């Protein structure tokens, strides 16, 4: 049998490495470099140091984009973490035709976000279904500005994200619920625990891992929201562009023949760092036991060292 050459394994992983380099690492590194330049299309870029980042603080649109994304996170995370869990509990039971309900709840996930957003625009625009109905029944004289008032617009977009995301996270929870032991529920019931108590003390701890996963996915998704707000405001971000998200701002700054690629890259970099925060929080929470153990063992070692030293001194 012929022995393999030393470089064979390297050769085998080379395509994957090149792929990752070209499509993940290189664009990322390029963005980091561009963030420190005044790059514009078709013109030579000039290194400008931290100028782009300084500009961020003066740009009120960045402030609005940041707060829009944060509002999105604060509202979406609890809603999309707990509502799908309740939905999953509802369709978890094996009753006739449950497959139909599971499929129905999953439907919005398959629909294209753009198409769904256009349908929502029909619903909520000035002459849309909701406003027409409200006017028909005489609740309002003038249409409610769902898609031009900043908070209402963000609210509509959040509603769309939640409605569309429910089914997806429901499936994640359904898989996890299957692993929560039936005997735990029975034991708790025997001990006299009601439905609510069992939900908090048995179900929730049983799906703690998936809850963490879902909340971090929702959080990162919410910081990077784009489609919903873009389609609902026709790309304008509402009056003053105040309902623009971070990604919308990046898109509007970086596009076209006169796009400010350097500045857009700087915002991208800030967005990247922001998405690291929830990941770090979940990382710490998920490994809290390991971290606690490590801290405890350090304390024990330290105590033993102190005790040993004290003993030595006594001698």
């Amino acid at each position, binding site marked *: 049998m012929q022995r393999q050459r*030393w*470089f064979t394994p*390297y050769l085998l992983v*080379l395509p994957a490495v*090149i792929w990752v*380099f*070209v499509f993940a690492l*290189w664009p990322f590194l*390029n963005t980091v470099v561009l963030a420190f330049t005044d790059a*514009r*299309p*078709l*013109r*030579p870029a000039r290194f400008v140091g931290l100028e782009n980042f300084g500009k961020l603080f003066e740009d009120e649109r960045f402030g609005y984009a940041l707060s829009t994304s944060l509002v999105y996170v604060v509202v979406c995370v609890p809603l999309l973490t707990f509502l799908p869990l309740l939905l999953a509990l509802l369709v978890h039971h094996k009753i006739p035709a449950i497959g139909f309900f599971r499929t129905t709840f999953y439907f919005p996930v398959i629909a294209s976000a753009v198409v769904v957003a256009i349908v929502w625009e029909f619903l909520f*625009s*000035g*002459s849309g279904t909701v*406003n027409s109905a409200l006017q028909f029944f005489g609740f309002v004289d*003038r*249409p409610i*500005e769902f*898609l*031009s008032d900043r908070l209402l*617009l963000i609210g509509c977009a959040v509603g769309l994200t939640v409605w569309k995301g429910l089914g997806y996270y429901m499936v994640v929870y359904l898989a996890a619920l299957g692993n929560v032991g039936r005997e735990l529920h029975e034991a708790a019931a025997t001990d006299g625990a009601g439905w609510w108590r069992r939900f908090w003390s048995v179900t929730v701890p049983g799906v703690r891992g998936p809850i963490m996963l879902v909340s971090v996915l929702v959080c990162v998704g919410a910081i990077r929201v784009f489609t919903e707000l873009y389609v609902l*405001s*026709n*790309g*304008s*971000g*509402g*009056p*003053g*562009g*105040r309902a623009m998200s971070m990604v919308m701002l990046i898109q*509007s*700054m970086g*596009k*076209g*023949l*006169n*796009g*400010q690629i350097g500045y857009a890259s700087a915002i991208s970099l800030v967005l990247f760092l922001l998405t690291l925060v929830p990941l770090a929080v979940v990382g710490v929470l998920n490994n809290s036991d390991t971290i606690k153990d490590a801290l405890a063992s350090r304390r024990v070692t330290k105590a033993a060292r102190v005790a040993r030293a004290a003993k030595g001194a006594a001698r």
Partner: protein
Amino acid sequence: MKIRTTVAAGIAVATALALTACTGGSSSSPGTSSGDGKISGNISFQTWSLKNDKFTPYFEGVVKAFEKEHPGVKVNWIDQPGDGYEDKILQQAGSGELPDVVNLPPEYAYSLASSGQLVDLKKDSKVLGDYLEGGVGAYKFDGIDGSFGFPWYLGTELNYWNKDLLAKGGVAKAPATFEDTLDAAAKLAASGVATMSSVPSPKMLQIVGATDAIYKDGKFVFNTPKAAAVIDRYAKLYKAGAITAQALQVAGTEGSNVNIFNTGGVVWTTAGPNYIDKDVAVNAPNLLPAVDVTNGFGNPPLFVQGISVSKKSKNSAAAMAFAEFVTNTSNQIAFVKLAAGFFPGTKAANADPAAFAGTPINELQKAATSLAAKQMANAKMTGAPQYTEAMETYAKQQIALAVTGEISGKEALDKAVQYAQQNVAK
């Protein structure tokens, strides 16, 4: 071990070099005009959203005629979809693959000319004098010596009114001036009729005469007291219900007003001269009997589409010859015959409007075309090459905010001017 490290380092360097090549790095290097002056070889010709049942036979005919005249040339006609043309141009220019002959509006031509991607027609073409001065002027840019596009087809904008809605609000005749329109809007609002579904943009403020220019002597100057007063007036009209709620929800985007006009939602819209046959007769035929057309207000806008030649063309002589051929008088007349409501870009073609008038489908189209023809003499380019789409969007966002009453018209315009000044390409 040393060999392994060397090989690994070699692979790393090779990959890095390959990647540098991927980014197309040196886009700033000036293009080189190669070619030996002989009209031969393969060239590409790019149009913008013109491949359809109406125009395809025309372009195929033009290409065939040119190839017959110059047997050594093969023209590859490509057409790009309406959406995302700017990105497509950017991608082509960035990778050094701009088509040899390309349809560009003046603002895209400005970006490409300022990065040395287009041929100076003043230097390289002998027939530039045959074209309309206004059209040629649209492709001359401050600070860049030369002329960068043959005017191809020109257009302007007219006012269209919904007579039924005007009558409903007690306004007997279509307003003749912008001031009258705002007065009528207030009157119509009292009867629950909305006049418009848009917020003014700096370009629109220039059209109605609220500002003379967008950019002058290196500065953005559209924050005039007159323009601020127009916006404040809009804010009052919005409160009164003369402007629809949709106007604000799509602030910064185009085309919404005309769509709402088509649904019978507003009294007034502006649109091109071919709006009757091309849009309302097709999309809202029931509305057609209620539509009236009048000429544009103040300084009617001039829209120009042109044909430019890439500096990087490998067969520059053939490219130049084709650019001249596709925009010559007879080809332009044949083209605008198909594109009713537009005007050709050569002096000779415009000498006899009857030659290209074509046959309108609807009676009102005839009136619109004739109004547009009269208006073309006064039509002026709006905006400025330095005034980008991003600046216009930002300004519209701020103006929309002023229309809600949250800030004043002056604040909105000052902010828009400041933004434009900060972001202008230096």
